[in-house]
């Protein structure tokens, strides 16, 4: 049954050191606020799962919160590299990062298997790719036709964290637009934390790809308006594309990254503080100029 809590409480309870956590979002509805709170609470040794680790995972990795990353595409969408992610993989800075990588189709199949209570899932995939030499993929034969298909193990995060548009007062979640693999990631996890833009009396129940996560599948809910910034929440905010472009410069440089994280995240009390800080161009100037 869903409980309404503060974000610090929720992260404190559900994301201790060493947790296997999936903070999902496919460029839309990325749970940045939750990621920042993990940074503020100084978590360590996390196993991070995500199809498309982007800036928030770059920040978590750069701050040394993660021991392992399970993913299928790690870049700054439309911009380029995640430099903190690269620095961790290429140079073990600030700490070495184990990686387990799949294709998108493989990750989606793994989450779907987890959500379906199956130990594995099957797909036509990985054929001819060197990925099979470096990750957990098996080939099985169809018991009816003999055709070979790929099998991948189910994903079952300790906790899945997503950001959604709405929760009603009983804790039912309303989410729409590009929902990526979030429903599957939530249904595959042992516990589920949802940050929402708004708590409403009645879910709106419209919009493309509208879906509901009933309250009895959700562990905790924290309201964090604009909690997906610089990503967006369809119906509530638009994507801060400039932020993503600027991130390239910040993340290239270890010291600049550290200064930025301290100024915009660590030294802020909460996500509201961060949102105010990113509005303040002069702060960014000071951070950039050291």
């Amino acid at each position, binding site marked *: 049954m869903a409980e309404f809590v503060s974000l610090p409480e929720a992260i404190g309870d559900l994301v201790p050191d060493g947790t296997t956590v999936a903070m999902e979002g*496919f*460029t*839309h509805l990325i749970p940045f606020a939750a990621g920042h709170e993990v940074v503020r609470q100084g978590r360590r040794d996390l196993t991070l799962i995500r*199809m*498309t680790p982007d800036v928030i995972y770059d920040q978590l990795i750069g701050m040394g919160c993660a021991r392992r990353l399970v*993913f*299928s*595409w*790690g*870049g700054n*969408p*439309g*911009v380029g*590299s*995640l430099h903190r*992610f*690269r620095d961790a*993989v*290429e140079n073990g800075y600030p700490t070495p990062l184990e990686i387990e*990588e*799949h*294709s*998108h*189709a493989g990750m*989606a*199949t793994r*989450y*779907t298997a987890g959500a379906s209570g199956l130990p594995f899932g099957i*797909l*036509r*995939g*990985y*054929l*001819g*790719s*060197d*990925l099979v030499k*470096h990750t957990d993929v098996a080939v099985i034969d169809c018991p009816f036709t003999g055709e*070979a298909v790929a099998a991948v193990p189910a994903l079952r995060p300790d906790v899945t964290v997503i950001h959604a548009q709405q929760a009603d007062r009983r804790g039912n979640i309303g989410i729409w*637009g*590009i*929902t*990526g*693999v979030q*429903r*599957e990631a939530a249904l595959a996890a042992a516990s589920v934390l949802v940050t929402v833009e708004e708590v409403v009396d009645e879910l709106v129940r419209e919009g*493309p*790809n509208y879906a509901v996560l009933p309250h009895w599948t959700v562990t905790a809910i924290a309201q964090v308006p604009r909690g997906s910034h610089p990503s*967006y929440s*369809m119906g509530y905010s*638009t*994507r801060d*594309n*400039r932020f*993503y472009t600027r991130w390239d410069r910040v993340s290239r440089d270890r010291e600049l990254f550290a200064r930025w994280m301290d100024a915009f995240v660590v030294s802020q009390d909460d996500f509201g503080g961060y949102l105010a800080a990113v509005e303040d161009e002069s702060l960014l100037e000071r951070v950039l100029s050291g």
Partner: protein
Amino acid sequence: MMTVTAARFLLDGQVCFVGIGLPSEAANLARLSHAPEVVLIYESGTMGTTPDVLPLSIGDGELAERAQFVVSVPEVFAYWLQAGRVDVGFLSAAQIDRFGNLNTTVIGPYDQPDVRLPGAGGAPEIASSAREVIVMLRHTRRAFVPQVDFITSVGFGQAGEGRTGHLGRGPTLVITDLGVLAPHPETNELRLVTVHPGIDVEEVREMTGWELDVSPDLDVGDPPTADELDILRQLIARTREAHSR
């Protein structure tokens, strides 16, 4: 020129699985010019979308708001790509080899990479299941290598052995800023079939990391028409304006 060339190859009504960047630019140019009925699918689950400006990310709101419908990511890959409903898949890469194999994973050894690239994303299954694949990338010696460091997405295999077990025909076209390459019908080795206007074959050979074979009936591409340039310029202007907000 890459964009215009790629756009020209798209037929009206084809279903295209599109990524961000040049493919997205080319597919939308086609849609806004000769192929109004082309169906654009982005891996974020936006189906039949008609963006007014080019997306910066695969999941821009623009794509969802202007999509015919939106589905989950597991469904995009299972019901639509894997089931063989995609006519043309676009791919790019950091490295491509003479047999059209693509690397988006690592430069150098996997466990000690010199450069860690973003990884596979949707590419391995697009390369396998789309009816045909159009590869778009800049023509440099660093990119066009005899053998890729890592086969992320298979073309015709490490030795050009072919495509047993794949639903699609693989990379039928490789479009670069210098010209167009296509696999040799017998050997599956990529060879030059078109050069862009003003480009010299020697230049292309120089920029290619293997002994590049040239098709006997090599032709020279037509320069972009005024219309094509016009539509493209407007699209890019709209895009820049929208994303600077």
